[in-house]
């Protein structure tokens, strides 16, 4: 059963140097508060995994937490480039970063295989693209019934997955709704998990389009109101679109970026 802990205790318990770390959220419910706590706790040498690495991964990469990125689309959605990500890839600043690059379909199926306890997934994908030559984790597989050749990708089974959700009950059952991306699969694929929530409530009234993660399937739950900002939590907050635009200027310059991180992340007291 999931244990309810503080955000800082939860991060300390689940994220260690050298871990393979997943933080998912498809524009919606991105676990920014958790990411900031990882930066404050000074984690290093992380293999970051995420379909859509955006601002929070830009921050982790720019602060030198990551040595590798497994991903399928790294941009500032609706704005443009991720400058810290590009600076790491193009100029190895602050550290070189190793890339393992996939498509969304491939990444989604890698999580699906992980959640299913299988070593690989099968899909129709990648054929004819230059990704095949750059990525060792794209191979072919032959159907034992028809002889057709398809694509295989290995399961993702991260050390830890962190997501943000709308709420949990006191037993640690987590409820989320709206656009949910691969969050459920990412949690089920992981050895350990931490879910930050807007609030803890007595009972989880049903919501349209909801997904409930039963308490027995997760490790920790931590309350982090507004923990998805500047992304949004449907029913709780709106996307801070201005911040996504501002991030372009903040992150373009290394010093501006470091100053912003110092003021807005490093000097903030960890959540109680």
């Amino acid at each position, binding site marked *: 059963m999931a244990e309810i802990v503080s955000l800082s205790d939860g991060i300390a318990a689940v994220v260690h140097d050298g871990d393979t770390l997943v933080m998912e959220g498809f524009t919606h419910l991105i676990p920014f508060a958790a990411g900031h706590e990882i930066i404050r706790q000074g984690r290093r040498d992380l293999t970051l995994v995420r379909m859509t690495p955006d601002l929070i991964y830009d921050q982790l990469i720019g602060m030198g937490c990551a040595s590798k990125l497994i991903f399928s689309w790294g941009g500032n959605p609706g704005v443009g480039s991720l400058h810290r990500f590009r600076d790491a*890839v193009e100029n190895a600043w602050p550290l070189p970063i190793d890339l393992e690059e996939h498509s969304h379909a491939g990444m989604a199926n890698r999580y699906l295989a992980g959640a299913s306890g299988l070593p690989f997934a099968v899909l*129709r994908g990648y054929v004819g*693209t230059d990704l095949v030559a750059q990525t060792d984790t794209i191979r072919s597989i032959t159907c034992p019934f028809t002889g057709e050749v398809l694509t295989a990708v290995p399961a993702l089974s991260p050390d830890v997955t962190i997501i943000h959700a709308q709420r949990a009950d006191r037993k640690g059952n987590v409820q989320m709704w709206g656009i949910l991306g691969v969050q459920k699969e990412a949690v089920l694929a992981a050895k350990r998990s931490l879910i930050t929530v807007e609030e803890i409530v007595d009972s989880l009234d049903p919501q349209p389009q909801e997904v409930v993660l039963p308490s027995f399937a997760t490790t920790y739950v931590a309350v982090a109101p507004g923990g998805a900002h500047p992304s949004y939590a449907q029913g709780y907050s709106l996307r801070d679109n201005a911040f996504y635009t501002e991030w372009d200027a903040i992150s373009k310059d290394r010093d501006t970026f470091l100053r912003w991180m110092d003021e807005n992340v490093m000097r903030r007291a960890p959540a109680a």
Partner: protein
Amino acid sequence: MTAAYTSDEMMTVAAARQLHNGTVCFVGIGLPSTAATLARVTSAPDVVLIYESGTLGAKPARLPLSIGDGILAETADAVVSVPEVFNYWLQPGRIDVGFLSAAQIDRYANINTTVIGSDYRHPKVRLPGAGGAPEIAASCREVVVVLRQTLRTFVDRVDFITSVGFGQGPGDRQRLGLSGSGPRVVITDFGILTPDPETCELTLVSVHNGSTAEDARAATGWPLAVSPDLATTDPPTEEELTVLRRLEATQGA
């Protein structure tokens, strides 16, 4: 009298006209999202819009801030997981039109959104990457591409094939086993291009009002073929322009 409009507006309007009532469209990130919203709000209220975020039948009345905007979930017929949208909806060929943009496109309509430069490990420019595009380009019955036409974007060979158009030419899609028929049309700020039925090479078939074939050629990194029946694109209607401007003015509001 027609109102003045920009070439970007013309491009978006021309792209929106590619969608019709009943068309099931997988909407890629960026320019396609604007065009798809415009189509739904104007001429194609019953177009079925599908986003890789898992929203099926979304009905945005304003421009989504991203393909994961809450308005897509709130107005969708169904919201499914990302694995499901790719596996149950895109992969089996249920989608009529894949609507994509690109950083580079080549004469065979192959798309690059990965890196600029010839060395993947040490790129000149690191682009966002593939996202959903490779499988959208592979599995939709047909593909519509919208992007601005410049010597940097229209190149003889893309630096990196992120998503396959017609590969190296005729027969390549069949050889690769791709189920969809590939790019049907490319819409730019200069005009409209379609693949030649025999050579698969992108060919200019329409120029937007105010542009010429020479303008388009000058913005293309290979000797651009021009259709002998070159048409002129109908300019945006009053309604198209009014709605597009209202949509863009309220973005983020």
